[in-house]
């Protein structure tokens, strides 16, 4: 009897044209190209599969050390290591396609033109359901500031991707900006179908005995439970500013954390660092949310999305 009720609860969500069976997915860069987690868990309760960020050319990434732990957090400076477009097309996409779960390909470029070229090339590959543009990386031509910090550049990147690709576009925002709502509005105006946030926060940690930064590059990006309250606030800011759906992430380690993000306005959530310790986290969150909805007499995940502002 109860079982049946829980199956009646609608968990599926729409991200623009993209339909997800479950509103939970891995965060880019914490799931590789899907080949590793499958040895531990199955993907049947995953709403989507999300790849590591891809660029036109393969990238070796940064020197070691690339990661360090901080209280309740992880700082990484992987340097966007990836196999590059050609190898992704030839060796990675076929595996991801097998599961009949929407595949979201995260990508980035060194220039605005790079983003457009990547979007066009990715759109020619079979098996991709949506693109996620990571605009948190440095704009090499403009002195290395992140693309995502300048509203004009955000508009230009988003519009030029939309020009080159018919696929649903998720624009992934960088969190360290003075007005995230403004950036989200601009992306929406330029044609973004979905906004995702947050990416990692610039951060550093110092080894006081060696008197040196712990990471080879000095700085990295902070993820994990330490950033969760900030991420919840930023997701809510964006939810209130735009009409397009939002994918929320940042420090989610339990279904309770996930419910917070839905209540703050996320239509779907992503799990990154949390899955490193608990490879079953995504299926557990999916089941946990369903149980929560059932126990609180909600019939659909949509009943709680943005509930704090209703």
């Amino acid at each position, binding site marked *: 009897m109860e079982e049946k009720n829980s199956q009646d609860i609608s968990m599926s969500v729409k991200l623009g044209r993209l339909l997800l069976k479950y509103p939970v997915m891995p965060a880019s860069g914490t799931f*590789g190209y899907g080949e590793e987690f499958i040895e531990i868990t199955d993907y049947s309760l995953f709403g989507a599969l999300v790849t590591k960020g891809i660029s036109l050319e393969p990238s070796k990434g940064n020197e*070691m050390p690339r990661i360090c732990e901080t*209280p*309740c957090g992880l700082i990484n400076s992987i340097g966007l290591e990836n196999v590059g477009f050609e190898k992704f097309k030839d060796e990675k996409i076929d595996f991801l396609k097998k599961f009949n779960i929407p595949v979201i390909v995260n990508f980035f470029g060194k220039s605005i033109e790079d983003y457009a070229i990547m979007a066009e090339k990715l759109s020619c590959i079979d098996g991709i359901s949506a693109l996620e543009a990571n605009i948190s990386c440095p704009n090499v031509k403009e002195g290395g500031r992140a693309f995502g910090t300048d509203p004009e550049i955000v508009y230009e990147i988003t519009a030029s991707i939309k020009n080159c690709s018919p696929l649903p576009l998720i624009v992934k925002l960088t969190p360290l900006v003075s007005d995230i709502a403004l950036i989200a509005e601009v992306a929406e105006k330029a044609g973004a179908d979905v906004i995702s946030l947050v990416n990692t926060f610039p951060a550093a940690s110092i080894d006081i005995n060696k008197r040196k930064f712990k990471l080879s590059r000095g700085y990295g990006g902070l993820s*994990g439970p330490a950033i969760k309250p900030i991420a919840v606030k930023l997701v809510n800011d964006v939810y209130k500013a735009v009409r397009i759906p939002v994918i929320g992430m940042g420090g989610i380690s339990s279904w309770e954390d996930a419910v917070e993000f839905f209540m703050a306005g996320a239509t779907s959530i992503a799990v990154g660092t949390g899955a*490193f310790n608990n490879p079953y986290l995504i299926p557990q969150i999916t089941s946990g949310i369903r149980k929560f909805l059932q126990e609180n007499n909600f019939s659909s995940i949509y009943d709680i999305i943005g509930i704090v502002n209703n």
Partner: protein
Amino acid sequence: MLYVWSKNLAAESLMKTKKIINENCEVTVNLKIKDTENTYLLRIKNNFVPQRFIPGQFVMLKHNPGSSDPLLARPFSIFRKFNENEFEILYRVCGKGTDLLSNIKKGDYVSVTGPLGNGFNALSDFQGLQNGGSTKIVKNIHVLIAGGIGIAPLFSLPDFIKNKGRAGNESTAAHRVNDSADNAAHNERSNINTEDSGRTPSNRALEDCDCGDNNKFILYYGSKTEKELYFRYSIHSDYDEVYFATDDGSFGYKGSVVDLLFKNINDYCNQNEKSTERLNVNFYACGPKPMLSYLINKFRAQNKSNMSNSGILNEYAVQVSLEEHFACGIGVCLGCVVKINSAHSNNFVFKRVCKDGPVFNAFELHDYC
């Protein structure tokens, strides 16, 4: 139609690929080892890991499942199988995570993910020295080199190799079935290696000869001081020869275990043309970075100076188990990479210590220091 077909395919591959568990497991023993400074033995109840692991593989262990501080699980080598339902790790307290782990009590639960990584390649027929007449009897010499806590991943290797030999000789189906999981894992690895090198994998040495008699195990075991030579009074039983070294001279040779090994290196690296035996020598090492780096450089120099004669070690002869800081431990975060010589240029490629390793062939490491 196509949809249904590919769905089944996916489901099937899911079943086949489940090779790693993640479970909260009960601790049955967590004890400081006698005569050591700060080293503990942790015994964990689980029936998957002890029956499936290959020496050199590790588990990600979190003493506080579900808690965020410390956030990440820590990697530990699988020290040995205690029985079918329990395995052990040997760990040294050196920071916050290991300190908290040492306070875990019998009956507490820890989160375990594993077995992870590649483990040592114990299929010895394609390793060792390069030359050799095919008519000679192959004598496998396994030289293990451990620095301090680096004994942990090496500890089970002699038993593992001996059991492989026996399993290879048994013609009874029962044995093959019992062993098939491990063999599958092994064959898979040798296939992967084959792609890299063009070498053909085979179980020939294991199946054609009585490996039990033709395997010789030698241990070189070094540390800073006597107290870090764990099991120094009991470890002999697994080996034909054991050599100890300590930096302070408190036990065995005074100095580096690598220097001690290289005093005897010609015993292992020079084939005797007149002998009816052909030596197949394999080195397996784990220890702190400076030790491994010194070891690798010594082997490189040795190979260079032996260029003209028969004592040249091939690229698979020296296996080293590396350490890095891990975040995920399963190969998804790219936080733990090491430089490996590129097959096509003088350049390097990054490989993941946790997934492509932790065991690498010493000669493929690029500027390891």
